């Protein structure tokens, strides 16, 4: 009844091909973005911003990156943590070498650096597919982490091998380093996410995204209709690694503040892959939903017993959290193997018919 496009006529191709062709969606998304930008910095306390919302924005960006590669182009990758590490270490080297450079420019350059590395590790994808490719990208993960551990130049010869975000400002506002307030870091992370999510949405609707999907669905057929596998696959690796690289730079500069290679180990790659799978392969919205699920549910589960007034020992609480969380993942994947984004789509279709389903 509320969610119906009756009476909304499209009079141009542009209107027909809009990202959100239905007015209600446009209103909802605009409101959502406004709320995301305005409400948390004003009302959320530091714990919510620092421990929940900032990592959420950063993980969502990384999940979009991996979704472009795995969901849209069909190339399974376990190298996300490695590519994020490239972004982080590149940003650290760039900003310590050129302190005057705007930190946003540093993030983009770090992303480009990660894209270059991703391009190199994408080369095997031309010959190997599926699980075998996953193993090849696993090599990227281990090699890159080993490299940053081994070569002290990347950490500016810090004896502990830790990189620390130096204080940097954007237009005079402290953005990174210990003095940067959580609201500022949140707004920057969200701004970067909003811009790059829009770019990703347009990429996958355009020629590039369509050629990725063609390769994913049947690479031989795609080749016959004129999609060049070499260029398309490598481009997917480069774009995906760019996103992961920017997310990695933000991970250290806006979230952790300082990090060692341990922060980028294989567990991070799996985490982002789970976000993509649970959220929905081949869906930008799914990346958001998946990131939200993986970040929010454990925190909810950790705090739930206390909120209910049950004083459980922390170890038991942690183990319960892991069990319930694992159970939820299995539950959602059984209910909807195509992820949360598909659930959302189904509920939208139901809503359109409501209250008179056939």
């Amino acid at each position, binding site marked *: 009844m509320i969610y119906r496009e009756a009476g909304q006529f499209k009079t141009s191709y542009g209107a027909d091909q809009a990202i959100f062709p239905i007015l209600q969606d446009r209103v909802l998304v605009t409101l959502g973005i406004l709320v995301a930008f305005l409400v948390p910095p004003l009302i959320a306390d*530091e*714990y919510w911003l*620092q*421990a929940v919302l900032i*990592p959420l924005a950063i993980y969502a960006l990384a999940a979009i990156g991996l979704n472009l590669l795995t969901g849209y182009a069909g190339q399974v990758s376990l190298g996300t943590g490695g590519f994020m590490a490239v972004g982080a270490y590149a940003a650290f080297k760039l900003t310590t070498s050129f302190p005057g450079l705007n930190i946003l420019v540093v993030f983009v350059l770090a992303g480009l650096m990660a894209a270059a590395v991703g391009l190199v590790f994408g080369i095997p994808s031309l010959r190997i597919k599926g699980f075998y490719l996953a193993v090849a990208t696993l090599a990227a993960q281990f090699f890159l982490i080993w490299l940053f*551990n081994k070569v002290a130049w990347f950490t500016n010869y810090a*004896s*502990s*091998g*830790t990189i*620390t975000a130096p204080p940097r400002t954007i237009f005079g506002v402290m953005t990174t*380093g*210990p*003095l940067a307030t959580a609201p500022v870091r949140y707004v920057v992370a969200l701004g970067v996410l909003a811009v790059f999510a829009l770019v990703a949405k347009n990429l996958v609707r355009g020629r590039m995204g369509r050629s990725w999907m063609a390769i994913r669905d049947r690479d031989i057929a795609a080749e016959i209709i004129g999609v060049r596998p070499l260029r398309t696959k490598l481009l997917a690796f480069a774009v995906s690694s760019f996103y992961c690289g920017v997310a990695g730079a933000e991970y250290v500069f806006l*979230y*952790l*503040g*300082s*990090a*060692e*290679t*341990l*922060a980028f*180990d294989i567990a991070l790659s799996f985490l982002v892959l789970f976000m993509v799978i649970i959220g929905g392969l081949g869906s930008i919205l799914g990346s958001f939903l998946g990131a939200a699920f993986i970040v929010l549910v454990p*925190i909810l589960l*950790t705090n739930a017993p206390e909120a209910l007034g049950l004083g459980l*020992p*922390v*170890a038991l*609480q*942690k*183990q319960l959290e892991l069990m319930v969380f694992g159970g939820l993942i299995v539950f959602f994947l059984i209910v909807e193997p195509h992820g949360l984004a598909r659930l959302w789509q189904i509920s939208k279709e139901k809503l359109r018919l409501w209250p008179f389903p056939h």
Partner: protein
Amino acid sequence: MSVKRLLIGVLATAVMAGPMVPAVSAQPKEIFIPLLVYRTGPFAPSGVPIANGFVDYFTLLNERDGGINGVKIAWEECETQYATDKGVECYEKLKGKGGGAALVNPYSTGITYQLIPKAAVDKVPVFSMGYGMTASADGRWFPWVFNFPTTYWSQASAVIRYIGQKEGGLDKLKGKKIAHIFHNSAYGKEANPTLEDLARQYGFELTLLAVDSPGQEQKSTWLQVRRLNPNWIFLSGWGVMNQVAIKEAVSINYPMDHFIGNWWSSSDADVIPAGDGAKGYIGATFHAPGTGFKIHQEVFKHVYDKGKGAGEKARVGEVLYNRGIANAMFSAEAIRTSAPSISRRMPLPMRRNSASASAI
């Protein structure tokens, strides 16, 4: 331990127990101490006894003395699984509780590195007892961080000195082969610069062997050890890595009396899995193990006999349990000396700041 380091340690102590600022009026209801613990995950074997030691000592103070200077101690545990991002989450969650944390014990060098810049902004003292960033011992640059009573650097030099003694003098170290097997993280790497320096000074041959976290997989490392056949091995491991390393050493028949673990690699849980083969293994610590101390009798009497113990009674007195007790003791005394009447608004750091100016 070099004189300078010792001096810094003494200074830190002096500063901690330094002069008080005028007493503040408002009397708080309790002193809040956040506990970052890891009772699950690959580092739980090391994390559980420490956490129990902490909790038992605070319970003892509350039960026997009614807290510190009559103010009850309140604490809350937060599970970090030794992961830095979880540690930051816990810190953010607990730093403002109970009117503000009196001090925080990160119990992970990785988490300490995260908290050092934050602590100065939030004005929460970080007490990283014998771990964390060695350079933070210098109160001129790190007024909010304490790593007293000692650091990885002083430990590394103490271990080399011990080896020198056993070899019959530091000059005998020339040409000897010493391997450092370390957890490949900020923690494990911390001793490397000192060891490298000492290797240059005394002319021994140092080999640095990194083991990736968590450290279950060490086959290649011990293959290198077998090829190298070092005279001495120094181990900087943590959690499951220690057990695996000691078992591997036993399986290649490495002489245990030439195998030294640092203070995170010398607990009961580390040697038990290796069985009799581990006899003779050397651990370097800064406190004694066992239950032969008055404090343990008090803990038994006031905590365990009342059924308020955090762990099993039989495990009281384990090396890492005593580490937890020692750490809690230092924390409690630091709070006591810094604040005759503790104010919620003005915790220990205020004193620290004014004191450090005069002390240094």
